[in-house]
């Protein structure tokens, strides 16, 4: 706490002079960096188009409202496909992420020098590349369709699930592990009875959370040809049928909010 002397009066200040100056310098540098970055962006922008955007928004809103409600019949199937992509992709990811997490965790990795960096590399590459880019690659390899979408979602989710899971493994209570070891259990038994029960709630929570994220991601995979509602969306955008687009967007919002609600409920029930 610092006190600022203003003539006779003493005024309370949250920070002393030195800290205030430091904060001020920090804000100044931050603002300068931001202004510089924005400047560079604005150099590459056609401001004419940006000023025209209210017209564009108005035009688009005019075309999008009202949505073609009749189109609803045609999007049940793609919606079902979308949910399948997310769910099966998550299942696929879980199967690969589970062992990967054990390889990556410092306390369970069979070899900290060789296996751990390898597992971490798998996790980082999977996390850094967006599912859209995975889908872009996979559509070229296995052809357009649901299968590419499932694999793309799976590959993207491995890193997420494995990262959170290995952090959970590293935070387990060691006493329980030692108790199991003291009974003369082998390494696999220690794993099955000492470690897995401790991380199971976290694991279930992480999986459901990722499933919820995957629903959102799988709605756009169709834009690059990997199946699901994105295909319909892309087709509608291509034929400039904006009233269909708005209907699809409504369907996406409902699905995403619904899945988020389910995942929140399940996670509450577990934890």
């Amino acid at each position, binding site marked *: 706490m610092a006190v600022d002397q203003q003539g006779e009066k003493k005024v309370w200040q949250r920070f002393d002079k030195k800290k205030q100056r430091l904060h001020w310098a920090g804000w100044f540098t931050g603002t300068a960096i931001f202004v510089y970055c*924005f400047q560079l*962006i604005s150099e590459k922008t056609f401001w004419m*188009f940006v000023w025209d955007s209210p017209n564009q928004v108005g035009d688009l809103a005019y075309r999008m409202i009202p949505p073609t409600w009749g189109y609803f019949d045609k999007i049940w199937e793609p919606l079902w496909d979308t949910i399948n992509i997310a*769910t099966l992709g998550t299942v696929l990811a879980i199967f690969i992420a589970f062992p990967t997490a054990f390889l990556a965790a410092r306390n369970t990795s069979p070899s900290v020098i060789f296996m751990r960096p390898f597992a971490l590399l798998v996790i980082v590459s999977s996390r850094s*590349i967006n599912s859209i880019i995975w889908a872009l690659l996979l559509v070229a*390899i296995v052809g357009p369709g649901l299968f590419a979408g499932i694999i793309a979602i799976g590959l993207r989710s491995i890193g997420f699930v494995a990262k959170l899971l290995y952090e959970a493994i590293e935070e387990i209570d060691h006493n329980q592990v030692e108790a199991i070891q003291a009974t003369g259990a082998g390494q696999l038994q220690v794993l099955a009875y000492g470690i897995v029960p401790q991380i199971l709630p976290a694991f279930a929570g992480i999986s459901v959370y990722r499933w919820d994220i995957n629903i959102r991601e799988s709605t756009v995979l169709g834009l690059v040809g990997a199946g699901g509602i994105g295909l319909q969306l892309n087709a509608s955008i291509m034929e400039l049928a904006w009233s269909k687009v708005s209907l699809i967007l409504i369907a*996406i*919002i409902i699905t995403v909010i619904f899945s988020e609600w389910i995942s929140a409920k399940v996670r509450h029930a577990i934890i």
Partner: protein
Amino acid sequence: MKKILRNQQQRQVDTNMTNLSLAPRTWKRKSFIENQTVRYSICAGVILYLFLSFNTLEINWIRVWEGLPRGQKFLAGFAPPDFISRWEEIVDGVLESLWMTVASTVVGIFISIPVALGAARNIAHPSVYYFCRGIIAISRSFHEILLAIFFVKFFGFGPFAGFVTLSFATIGFFAKLLTEDIEDTSVSQSEAIQATGANWWQWINYGIQPQVMPRMIGLGLYRFDINFRESAIVGVVGGGGIGATLNTAFDRYEFDSAAAILIVIIAIVFFVEYTSGIVRKQVQ
């Protein structure tokens, strides 16, 4: 506790009943879902779902099979990564992505703060509450790429559309987590500030802000990290940044350059994540 005890007694009785012949009793691990009916119905539901989903999957296995050798050739096209021939474009793209990331994180966070204050149940009036919750829900429901398609249409091609997209996506993420944090703040501290006769601004600034600040810095860094990753895809639909470079490389079938770009993205993400992890540890 009582319930557990009763369960244990029940189990004891059960084992006694079934083991009248003095056969050795074996211990069984408690299962994750204790209620048997719930457990079995969940299993049945999962099997039913898998059956239904596989029935409607329509995977063209012939196409997949035919695709594998082509996939191999395709993957072979990635190696070795070619950093040299498109190096200038890669550097340009990465820098553009970085500008977009910095600008959008800053703007996104600045907009998130009032939204989060409005969406926190312990601060906001109900009418504001539902409005701000609505903003968060909309921003969270749409994937960045969907937003980017619309913003590219509104603002034209280039990094500005990407910047707006990422800013908007940041609001959903940041405001939601910040809201939860504000709702979790201790009431006694904010009441103490109110008791001194502080007005609304002073209350927020001295009662709430110091409580949420450390986590906010951590979240901001985390979002920076996410925004960089997302800036790699808004380019695919015309939002500028490294994604645009990547998309061009794909369109020209220059897979070796694409591989180089992917490696650059992974390296930068790794670096940003590592440094932001260190900073977050220092702050918290």
